[in-house]
C-alpha cells in the first residue's frame, strides 16, 4: 500500500514541478503575434497561388498588417471584394483596382499553323523550347504542351485538343500570373478584363517579317501597321514587325479588328456586329428620311 502511495505522491510532485517550469518558460519565450494577421488570413482565398508576389496567403496577411497603406498590396485571386474585407479588418481604405485576366497571344491552331516537324521528348514546353524553336515554322508560337495548365491553381486553363492551344476561362482566371511565368515563349499576358469582359488584343507574338510570318501561320501579325493607322487613340504600337495594343489607352472601338488583314486582332465578348450597309444605301435612306 505504501509503495502505491509513494509512487502517486512522487509522480504528482514531479508533474507539478515540471508543469510550473514549462509554464514559466512558455511565458518567457512567448511569441507575440498580431491577432489581426489571423483575421486577415481568414478573409483571404487561401489558394496560396503567389499572385501577390508574397509567399502564400499568410505572408500576404503579414505584409498587409505591417503596411501603413494597402495601395501596393493586392490579392488578385480575391479581387476587390476580398481587399475591401482586408481593409475593413485593418481599419484602412482599400484601393480599387480594375480586374485583370490572362490572355493567350497565339491563335496558331492546327489548321492555321501547319506542323513542320515532330517533337518527341519530354512533354514540357520549357524543355522543348530549350531544345529548339518548336514543331511549326513559327519560332515564337505556342508549343501546346501545357506548362501553363500544370501551374494553374484555379483550374482556369485547359488544352483544347482540336486546336492544340490552351483555353483560358473568363470565370476561373484570377490573373495570379503563374501561367505568365511558366510560359517559356512569353505568350500569355495579363490584360485588363475590360468593361463587360470585353477585350481587344493582338493574338500573336511572331516577330518575323511579314512574309515569313504569314508563310508559317495564316493568322500571324505581319506588322503591316494598318491597325495603328486606324486607331484614333494612339493605342497601337508596331515594334519588331509586331503590333501591340496598349490596354490602358484602348477604347474598345474595334476599328483595328476590322482592318486587320490576317485576323490577328481578336475581340472577345462583344455583341455581334450589325450587317454592313453600303454607303450608297445609307445615303438613300437619309434622303428618304429628309423627304
Amino acid at each position, binding site marked *: 500500500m505504501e509503495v502505491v502511495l509513494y509512487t502517486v505522491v512522487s509522480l504528482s510532485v514531479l508533474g507539478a514541478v515540471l508543469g510550473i517550469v514549462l509554464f514559466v518558460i512558455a511565458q518567457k519565450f512567448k511569441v507575440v503575434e498580431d491577432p489581426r494577421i489571423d483575421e486577415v488570413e481568414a478573409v483571404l482565398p487561401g489558394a496560396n497561388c503567389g499572385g501577390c508576389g508574397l509567399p502564400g496567403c499568410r505572408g500576404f496577411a503579414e505584409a498587409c498588417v505591417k503596411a501603413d497603406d494597402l495601395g501596393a498590396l493586392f490579392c488578385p485571386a480575391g479581387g476587390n471584394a476580398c481587399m475591401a474585407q482586408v481593409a475593413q479588418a485593418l481599419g484602412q481604405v482599400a484601393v480599387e483596382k480594375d480586374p485583370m485576366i490572362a490572355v493567350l497571344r497565339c491563335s496558331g491552331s492546327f489548321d492555321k499553323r501547319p506542323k*513542320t*516537324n*515532330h517533337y*518527341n*521528348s*519530354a*512533354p*514540357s514546353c*520549357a*524543355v522543348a523550347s*530549350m*531544345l*529548339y*524553336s*518548336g514543331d511549326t515554322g513559327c*519560332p515564337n508560337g505556342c508549343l501546346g504542351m501545357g506548362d501553363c495548365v500544370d501551374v494553374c491553381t484555379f483550374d482556369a486553363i485547359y488544352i483544347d485538343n482540336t486546336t492544340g492551344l490552351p483555353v483560358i476561362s473568363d470565370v476561373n482566371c484570377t490573373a495570379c500570373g503563374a501561367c505568365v511565368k511558366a510560359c517559356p515563349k512569353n505568350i500569355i499576358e495579363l490584360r485588363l478584363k475590360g468593361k463587360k469582359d470585353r477585350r481587344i488584343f493582338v493574338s500573336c507574338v511572331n516577330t518575323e517579317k511579314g512574309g515569313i510570318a504569314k508563310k508559317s501561320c495564316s493568322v500571324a501579325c505581319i506588322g503591316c501597321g494598318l491597325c495603328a493607322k486606324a486607331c484614333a487613340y494612339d493605342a497601337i504600337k508596331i515594334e519588331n514587325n509586331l503590333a501591340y495594343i496598349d490596354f490602358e489607352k484602348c477604347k474598345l472601338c474595334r476599328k483595328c479588328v476590322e482592318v486587320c488583314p490576317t485576323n490577328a486582332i481578336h475581340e472577345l465578348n462583344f455583341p455581334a456586329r450589325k450587317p454592313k450597309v453600303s454607303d450608297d444605301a445609307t445615303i438613300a435612306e437619309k434622303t428618304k428620311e429628309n423627304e
Partner: protein
Amino acid sequence: MLKTFPTGGVHPAENKLSAGKTIVKMDPPKTVVVPVSQHIGAPAQAVVAKGDKVMVGQLIAKSGGFVSANIHAPVSGTVVKVDKMPDSTGYKQMCVVIDTAGDEWLPDIDRSADLITEISVPDGEIAAKIAAAGIVGMGGAGFPTHVKMTVPPGKKASHLVINAVECEPYLTSDHQLMMEKANEIIIGCLIMQRAIAATQTIIGIENNKPDAIKHLTETAAKYSSSIVVQGLKVKYPQGGEKQLIKAVVKREVPSGGLPIDVGCVVQNVGTAYAVYEAIQKNKPVIERVVSVTGKSLQNPVNLLARIGTPISELIEAAGGLPENTAKIVNGGPMMGKAVADVSVPVTKTTSGVLIISELEALRPEQFNCIRCARCVGVCPMSLEPYLLKNLVNISEWEALQPERVLDCIECGSCSYTCVAGIPLLDYIRLGKANLNKILRSRKS
C-alpha cells in the same frame, strides 16, 4: 594492355557503316551559309558587308573575345546577306551568306599536297596562329583551341592527350582521317606538344579501330618517341575529356575544374589535323570531314565538305534522302541533335550527319520512374540523373547545384539506359540552363 575509365558508361551498337570509305572531296556548293557562332563562347563579329567580294580563307568574322574564334570564307564569291537565319535548332542566328563564284584562294595558302615536317613557327607564336586560323574543338564541343593551348600561369601541362576515340556509334570521320592523314596528325600533335611544353603525347584510340591503332603507332615511331598510341576498351562516352584523362593517365579532374588542373590538355584528332594545316600550310578552318551515315542510307560516305554547305547537299552526295526518314541528326546518335530543317549548314563541329528511319526513331512510351537506378550506374560523372530530373520537375533550380548538375557532360547514357523511357538528359539540360542563368545573374 587496353585501358578504360572506371565509372559508368554504356556500349551502344557501333554501326560504323561508313568505316573504310575513302574521304570524298565535295565541290564548293552554290551558296554557303556561315554562322558567326560555331563555337563555345562569344559569337564572332562579321567584318564583311553585303556586296563584298571574298576569297577562300579570307576573314569574314572576327573573334568576339578571348573565348571566341575567327570565321573564314569557305568559298570565293560575293556576300549576299549578313542577317539572322534559322540554325539547326530553328532559332535565329547571325549568318554570312556567300554566293560562290569560281574557287579563288588567298595566295598565301599552301594548297599543295606536300608534307612539311619542319616546324618553323616559334613555340610562343603557335597559340596566336591557331587563334588566327579560327580552330575550335573539331570533335563536337567547339571549344576554341587557342584557349586550351594557352596554359594559364602557375599551371603546367605534362601530357597532351589526343582524343581519337570516336566513341559515338555510326561516326567514322576521325577514323578515316587517321587512316589517310596520319603523318599530318602526328606533326599536328608535335606542334601542339611544343606549344604547351608537354613532355608526352598520348593518342587514345578505341579497340574497334585496330587498323588506326597500328597505322598511327607506326607513323608516330617515325617522328618522335614522345608520342604514344594507347588502345582503349570500347565504351561510351570515352571521348569525354574527363573520361579520357581518367582512362589514359589515371588522373581525375576535380568537379568544376579543367583538364589543365591535372596537367593535361585534351585535343581531338581532327583538331590536330587542323593545327597542322594552319601552322604548316597557312590554311584556316574552311572545310571538315563529315560522316554521312545511317542504316537506311544507300551509300554511307565520309565527305570533305566546306563549312556552310547545306546538309541537304551532303545527303544528296550519299545517295539521297530515303523516303522513310524520320530524323536527321547533326552529330552522332548519342550526343547529336535532330535538325529542324535540312537546309542548315555544316559547321566546324559537324562531325556527322545521321539519317534515322521511322522504325529506328520510335521512342519507347514514357512511364514513371521505377527507381531501378540504372541511370545512376551508367553515369560516367557519378551523378544521380533520376534525382536531377525530379528536382527539375519541381523547379528547384538552386538545389541542383550541390547535386553537381553542372558536371553533367550531356553524354545521354542515362536517357539511353532508362527502362521507363524517360528523356532524363533533356530535363537535366533544362536544369543546367536555368541554374546557369541564376548563377550569372548573381555574379552581375
